[in-house]
């Protein structure tokens, strides 16, 4: 049973560019959340998708946007990249319309030059 899978594993971009990160949730999970983890810190909530809608959003600018597809997979898009966007981007999935324990993927390491 595959867990949460994310692609790519690493990515290098320059300031001002745009990036798309992808996530496939754990089998049986229909809720997907995205987190940003800076080096040495805990994950920070970006937003959560359920039934193809953004259900909740954290304190991140509109440059961060997302999408959830009918098969529950999800994308995170970041526009106008800044040096400060360099981080590990984590996707987490959960089952059902409730706060069940979230399961994380291994993330995408994004470096901005």
């Amino acid at each position, binding site marked *: 049973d595959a867990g949460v899978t994310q692609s790519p594993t690493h990515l290098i971009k320059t300031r001002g560019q745009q990036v798309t990160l992808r996530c496939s949730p754990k089998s049986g999970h229909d809720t997907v959340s995205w987190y940003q983890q800076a080096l040495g810190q805990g*994950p920070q*909530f970006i937003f959560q998708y359920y039934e193809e809608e953004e259900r909740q959003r*954290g304190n991140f600018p509109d440059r961060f946007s997302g999408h959830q597809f009918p098969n529950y997979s999800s994308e995170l898009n970041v526009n106008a990249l800044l040096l400060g966007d360099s981080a590990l981007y*984590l996707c987490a999935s959960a089952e059902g319309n409730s*706060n*069940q324990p979230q399961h994380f993927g291994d*993330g995408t390491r994004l470096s901005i030059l």
Partner: protein
Amino acid sequence: QQQVKQSPQSLIVQKGGISIINCAYENTAFDYFPWYQQFPGKGPALLIAIRPDVSEKKEGRFTISFNKSAKQFSLHIMDSQPGDSATYFCAAPSSNDYKLSFGAGTTVTVRA
């Protein structure tokens, strides 16, 4: 907004010893309180979670203790092994939204 305070920032324990990590949350929360284990280059892996109507939960060498009135919960790692060397995060949900708020993390080093 849920705030979660985790301590200590790091700890070193001898093989076979007990590691204790503490977390405190501010707002009333429901559903569950998870602990995650993260190795370098990997995502956080769900280690153990407890529901707020339970005071203690044990899975193998890992035990969560929960004190609802004090709004505190802790992770105890018994018989610590070198393979337990990792960063541990506590997290707490909020009562009226869906996100998890994480502590700052505790780096545990187990000396052989």
